[in-house]
């Protein structure tokens, strides 16, 4: 039971600063995901909370305790590593019970807790094996078992599913969600996979280049990305971005020149640009429409068609040769090099200024 607070956290490796003053607050019992591309500092941030990485500047609190100077062993956190980091010379039983043994818990109690964790994770019949004799998924469960028995105040996960195959990943994802629902403990989860972030998180922290770009629930991030980076990172396939020219501003009404002949009108409150400026318009592939004629439209030529069965991805070039992605239904009737009209409504348009920030 603990909230986690980071105050102006900075991290430098030698001369290079990789995390530039991160402030964040994680509530008790919250499932938080740090997501971002590789090298964005998400793992470093997690390791600083764990105590495995020195803190260059700033303060970290777990609960009400200032933990900057505490050894990892004293922070009350437990961690699942990307490589699982199971002790190869110990049986599964010893791996799970290791932390308890170190804390001088009586043997009978260790037995009971290990058995309980094994039951939750369905690894009872593996207890006497060595990690070398387990499959990836089984090792993952053992690694989780090792954290559960310690009853930590915070669980830390460092890309725990990235070594598993796709089917197993989906299954383990659900099991982790269930685990969180049962244990009701603060969990911090690091991943580069936005699908994992969207499906599991109560709140997502999007990191890029050592800065927090945006914090919010999965749907907030999907619906109202704060900037181009977040808009492009959340959602799959990626959001389409078009360069548009501001033709006219009348009060809150903006007229934009789309690539080619088409024009469109949008309502915005914070107008910090003028006619003639080039802005970025973002539209998600699933918000493009080919068959129903409504709202605004764009002309394009079909380049590649990918049929997934339930839906179809169409990659098409617009008049300025931008590659647009359209998600249509599975039966969509299109062919290569066909000239198409892409329709969309203004409610699903995101407008970004020259500073890459969203214009509301």
């Amino acid at each position, binding site marked *: 039971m603990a909230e986690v607070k980071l105050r102006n956290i900075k991290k430098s490796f030698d001369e290079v600063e990789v995390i530039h003053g991160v402030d964040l607050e994680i509530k008790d019992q919250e499932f938080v995901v740090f997501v971002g591309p590789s090298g964005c500092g998400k793992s470093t941030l997690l390791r600083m909370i764990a105590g495995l990485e020195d803190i260059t500047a700033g303060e970290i609190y777990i609960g009400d305790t200032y933990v900057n100077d505490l050894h990892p062993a004293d922070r009350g956190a437990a961690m699942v*590593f990307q*490589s699982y980091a199971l002790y190869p010379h110990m049986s599964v039983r010893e791996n799970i019970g290791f932390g308890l043994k*170190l804390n001088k818990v009586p043997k009978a109690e260790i037995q009971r807790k290990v058995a309980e964790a094994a039951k939750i994770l369905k690894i009872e019949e593996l207890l006497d094996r060595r990690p*070398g004799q387990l499959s990836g998924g089984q090792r993952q469960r053992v690694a989780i078992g090792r954290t559960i028995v310690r009853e930590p105040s915070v669980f830390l996960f460092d890309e725990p599913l990235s*070594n598993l195959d796709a089917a197993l990943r989906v299954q383990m994802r659900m099991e982790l969600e269930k685990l969180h629902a049962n244990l009701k403990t603060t969990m911090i989860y690091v991943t580069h996979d936005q699908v994992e972030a969207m499906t599991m998180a109560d709140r997502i922290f999007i990191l890029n280049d050592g800065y927090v770009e945006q914090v919010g629930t999965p749907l907030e991030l999907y619906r109202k990305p704060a900037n181009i980076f977040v808009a492009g990172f959340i959602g799959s396939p990626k959001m389409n971005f078009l360069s548009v020219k501001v033709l006219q501003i009348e009060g809150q009404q903006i007229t934009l020149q789309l690539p080619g002949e088409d024009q469109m009108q949008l309502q915005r409150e914070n107008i910090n640009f003028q006619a003639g400026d080039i802005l970025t318009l973002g539209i998600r592939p699933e918000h493009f429409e080919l068959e129903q004629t409504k709202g605004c439209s764009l002309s394009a030529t079909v380049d590649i068609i990918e049929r997934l069965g339930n839906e179809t991805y169409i990659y098409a070039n617009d008049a300025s040769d931008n590659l647009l992605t359209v998600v249509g239904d599975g039966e969509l009737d299109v062919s290569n090099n066909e000239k198409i009209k892409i329709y969309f409504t203004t409610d699903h348009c995101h407008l970004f200024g020259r500073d890459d920030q969203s214009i509301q």
Partner: protein
Amino acid sequence: MKPKQNQYPLRYSIYSLIAVVAAMIFFFPIYWAFSTSLRNPLDTFTVSGFGIPFLNFDPTLTNWVDQLATEEARKAVYNSTVIAVFASILALALGIPAAYALARFRFKTISNKDLTIWFLSQRVLPPVATVVPFYLIMQFLNLLDTQLALILINATFVLPFVVVIVRQTFLDLPIELEEAAFMDGARNYGAFLRVALPLAAPAIAATGLIMFAFTWNEFLFAITLSSKEVITIPIHMAGAVDTRGVQFWFMAVRAMIAMIPPVLIALLAQRYIVQGLTLGAVKG
């Protein structure tokens, strides 16, 4: 992987032949020592052919019985064993913590790399250059002709190797394992004793074995610092030369005795090392 024997019969036979010839070249001196040790002194220079027992001469155990009966031989085995075992243990006991510290902690005033090279530099000097200083030190400490003197000196000599080899072993261990131990509530020494050390054990055993062999074979300091009491096997072997020339029959027996312990330990340790390699990978 199995060699594909049937696919390339000729090539495979040639490789085998080369292997057999090479093995024979390496084993011949050992075989010859063994054969000589079973001969009557008179037969030593007169045996024809390959000196095959029963075929070329009548073997006898006299040399073995004579040698093992002497107190010098038994003393030499005893001295060498004590010195080699304790010097290796002492070097490991001092070297392993140093190696771990160099592998896992970051020193600021002198960098880890410089410290490691400084350890190794102790072996750049030819040992003979240090004979006189060591002799004087041991004389001052009143340790001349004692096992302790040779234990200390041999431990000093093998310590740099222990540090360098074992440090590399610790560097090769995935650091996540020790980090996991920290998260499980272990301190530095807990992570070292319960996780890093057991995982490095096979490599440490192999290192200990090599250090044992080094010490077992050490000649220069053994002959300089000991005169009567602490004769070791290499000195004893050299002692098979007397005014009538080399007594090859005794030399052969002593050589065989000198070889047995390291070979036995190597065989035992080999199984242990193989076991260590099959512990299982960390990643999935």
